[in-house]
């Protein structure tokens, strides 16, 4: 299936920057977990995700369409962030054979402040990767642009959305 077209970064919304290893780690986790959902923590500073920490999906509601991070794993993510002198920025999860857009269930269970990264996995292959943040009144998510920081040798940044 064709990947979605890259989004053009416009406006003043903050852009989420993924280190290349974090981007590839999220995509790899999505591929390995398919057809189940994967999940993990986003650790970094401000809008830079330095590390994607894979966590077990502990849902008891069917892991092909749900994910749950256990409290013990949540605490491990906070500790990992503190050990790096960084912050827990949010969480990622995959949508197997489903668009990289938040579902009503995602909205119901979202927390303020956190960034939520979603990667669509189509037929086992990671495709579009998007990032979302809950509005203060909990009424909806706003999408934030995502760019991937290239390894230092390559330099520069590329847009993440729509890449396979």
């Amino acid at each position, binding site marked *: 299936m064709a990947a979605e077209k890259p989004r053009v970064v416009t406006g003043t919304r903050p852009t989420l920057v993924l280190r290349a290893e974090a981007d590839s780690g999220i995509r790899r986790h999505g591929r390995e977990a398919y057809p189940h*959902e994967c*999940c993990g923590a986003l650790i970094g500073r401000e809008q830079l995700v330095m590390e994607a920490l894979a966590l077990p999906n502990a*849902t008891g*509601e069917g892991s092909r*369409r*749900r*994910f*749950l*991070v256990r*409290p013990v794993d*949540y*605490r491990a993510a*906070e500790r990992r*962030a503190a050990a790096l002198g960084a*912050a*827990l920025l949010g*969480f990622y*999860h995959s*949508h*197997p054979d*489903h668009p990289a857009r*938040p*579902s*009503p*269930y*995602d909205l119901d*269970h*979202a*927390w*303020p*402040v*956190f960034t*939520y990264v979603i990667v669509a996995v189509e037929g086992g292959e990671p495709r579009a990767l998007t990032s979302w943040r809950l509005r203060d009144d909990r009424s909806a998510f706003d999408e934030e642009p995502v760019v991937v920081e290239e390894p230092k040798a390559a330099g520069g940044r590329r847009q993440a959305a729509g890449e396979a």
Partner: protein
Amino acid sequence: MGHKILIPTPLRVYAGKQDVVEAEGRTVGELLANMTAEYTDLRHHLYTEDGKLRSFVNIYVNDDDIRYLEKEQTPLKPGDTVSIIPSVAGGGRA
């Protein structure tokens, strides 16, 4: 003497941007009531409109979930640390 309460990242903005706050209470319920009296913006993130703890809020005393202790009646001993831990959940299809 006060007990330490560990505040998770998404709620720190409602707790004076602190990761730890202190409050007094003989039980978990008292402690949380005293904390939210001081940090009122925390209240609607922790409690439903009818005053029950939200299902996606986990409260731990040291390493134990209060659901498996005496819930909000769980007594506190000197030196106990209370943690507020969000359940993080979601998923693709409805």
